[in-house]
């Protein structure tokens, strides 16, 4: 019995390159796949002809490998050995390739350009507002209703419930919610209406306590502040929902404000609030939860309006200036989309390619 082993040199086409947009700590290999091969051995050397050693073994079906065990600035050569049932395939020797640290991530250049333009526009409008120019921004009915809703709770002698979402303070929506909470707390403190803020995260509770305390002090009502009204319930999503639902049913707040980041609990909260007869204002930047709030609440802040709310409620010219800049940024985006659609329809790729991620 003789076992015949057929070796095919350069049966695999190998390409290696310095991984783009990294700190020079990796090299990427890509090769052509072959259904006859069951596994690949990755071989590496710092010489073009000899001293190739196995650095990894990958299963068939994969056509890329990122070698992270390299030193920046060193030249490397690669080969791949593919093992078939009774056949061994070799690739060409690819290289030399030298990993180099990139100072700027070119893959994020388009984001950087958009951000710079947006920053410039916002700063321009802020400077105009600083000079005393009166800027017009459209009315947001949900925010106009906030004061009315607090007034209603005051007249009814019932509390206001503020739910700042279920995420921690590293989430921008929670930060936005805290900014709105500051304005709501000012009003409720002014009117002497109890304000309940149940939180799902201890850090959010701590922040909310500080925000409400400062707001009460600001309007000259430090005695109104009660730390026990701003409490931590649980990190568990549905445990939190059941606790807040319980508060709604027992305390019967006249106004429920759901502002922040919400997931599946959005509708459970809003529907329970509806059954208790409260006026409800919601706002979130979670597109999947917006329809639930729209269906179950009296007013809803749609996406960006949540981030604009604090600035809108403050009515400070500088903050309004930033909103104007944001709106202008939106106009630029709309124009870019329209131009992109038209040029693509006309078969021109140039404008479209400007926004493609660079490798």
């Amino acid at each position, binding site marked *: 019995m003789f076992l015949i082993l057929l070796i095919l040199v350069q049966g695999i086409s190998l390409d290696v390159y310095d991984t783009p947009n990294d700190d020079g700590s990796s090299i990427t290999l890509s090769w052509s796949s072959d259904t006859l091969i069951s596994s690949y051995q990755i071989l590496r050397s710092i010489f073009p002809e000899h001293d190739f050693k196995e650095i990894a073994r990958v299963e068939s079906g994969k056509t890329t490998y990122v070698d992270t065990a390299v030193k920046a600035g060193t030249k490397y050569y690669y080969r791949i050995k593919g093992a078939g049932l009774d056949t061994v395939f070799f690739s060409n020797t690819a290289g030399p390739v030298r990993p180099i640290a990139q100072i700027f991530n070119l893959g994020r250049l388009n984001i950087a350009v958009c951000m710079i333009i947006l920053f410039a526009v916002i700063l321009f409008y802020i400077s105009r507002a600083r000079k005393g120019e009166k800027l017009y921004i459209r009315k947001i009915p949900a925010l106009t209703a906030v004061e009315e809703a607090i007034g209603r709770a005051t007249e009814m002698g019932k509390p206001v419930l503020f739910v700042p979402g279920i995420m921690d303070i590293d989430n921008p929506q929670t930060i936005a919610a*805290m900014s709105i909470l500051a304005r709501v707390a000012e009003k409720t403190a002014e009117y002497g209406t109890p304000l309940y803020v149940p939180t799902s995260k201890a850090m959010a509770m701590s922040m909310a306590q500080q*925000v409400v305390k400062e707001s009460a002090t600001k309007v000259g009502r430090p005695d109104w502040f009660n730390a026990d009204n701003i409490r931590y319930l649980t990190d568990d999503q549905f445990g939190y929902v059941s606790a807040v639902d319980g508060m709604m049913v027992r305390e019967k707040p006249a106004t429920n404000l759901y502002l922040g980041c919400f997931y599946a609990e959005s509708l459970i909260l809003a*529907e329970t609030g509806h059954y208790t007869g409260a006026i409800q204002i919601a706002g979130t930047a979670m597109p999947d939860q917006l329809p639930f709030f729209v269906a179950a609440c009296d007013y809803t802040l749609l996406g960006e309006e949540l*981030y604009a709310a604090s600035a809108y409620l403050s009515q400070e010219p500088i903050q309004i200036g930033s909103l104007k*800049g944001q709106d202008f940024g939106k106009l630029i985006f709309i124009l870019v989309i329209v131009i992109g659609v038209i040029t693509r329809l006309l078969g021109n790729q140039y404008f479209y390619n400007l926004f493609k991620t660079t490798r």
Partner: protein
Amino acid sequence: MKSILPIIVVFGFGFFMLVSFFIPLKGIQDTSQTFQNWYIGVMAFFIFIGIFNIIKINLEKIQRRLRDWQYSIILLICLLVMMAAGFIGGPEGGLFLYFYKNVQIPLGATMFSLLAFFVASAAFRAFRARSPEATLLLIAAVLVMIGRVPIGYWIWHGFPNLVEWIMTVPNTAAKRGILFGIDLGMISMGLRVLLGIERSYMGGGKE
């Protein structure tokens, strides 16, 4: 100083994290990761503050015999039992896992299940054709609901394709529009926070 120092800290760290998003250099990335690890450390510490808050509020409620104070006893007992189970057997321990699987998960699932009924009641109110927009919503919802179930295909073979088109074209377009607004709003708010224009989240408004 009380308000200036936090603004300097926010600006410093915020600006650094923003820059680190664009610069892949090792030193920058490592420092960025260190800052994020600090946050995790601080967050872990806050768990104690949270537990302390729960115990304090519920003990007060029991002491002052406030309304439904009996529930606070149950809550504190459950808290202590779970803590004890965790300390004795660890988070993977038998007793802790037993309570988690047989109490915590079914209770959570029960709350989640309520969603089905709430969807029905909210849909009933939302789909009343009171305005042209609501009528449009009603028509789209009916088409999507019919097209998603086998009877839709039985009525008309084109229903699933129509639903697919509604979901991928008008629905996605609207969603993307909202997402653009959200991203712009987030950047705008981020800039206001970085520059110290927006400081109400720190408990302070205008100077």
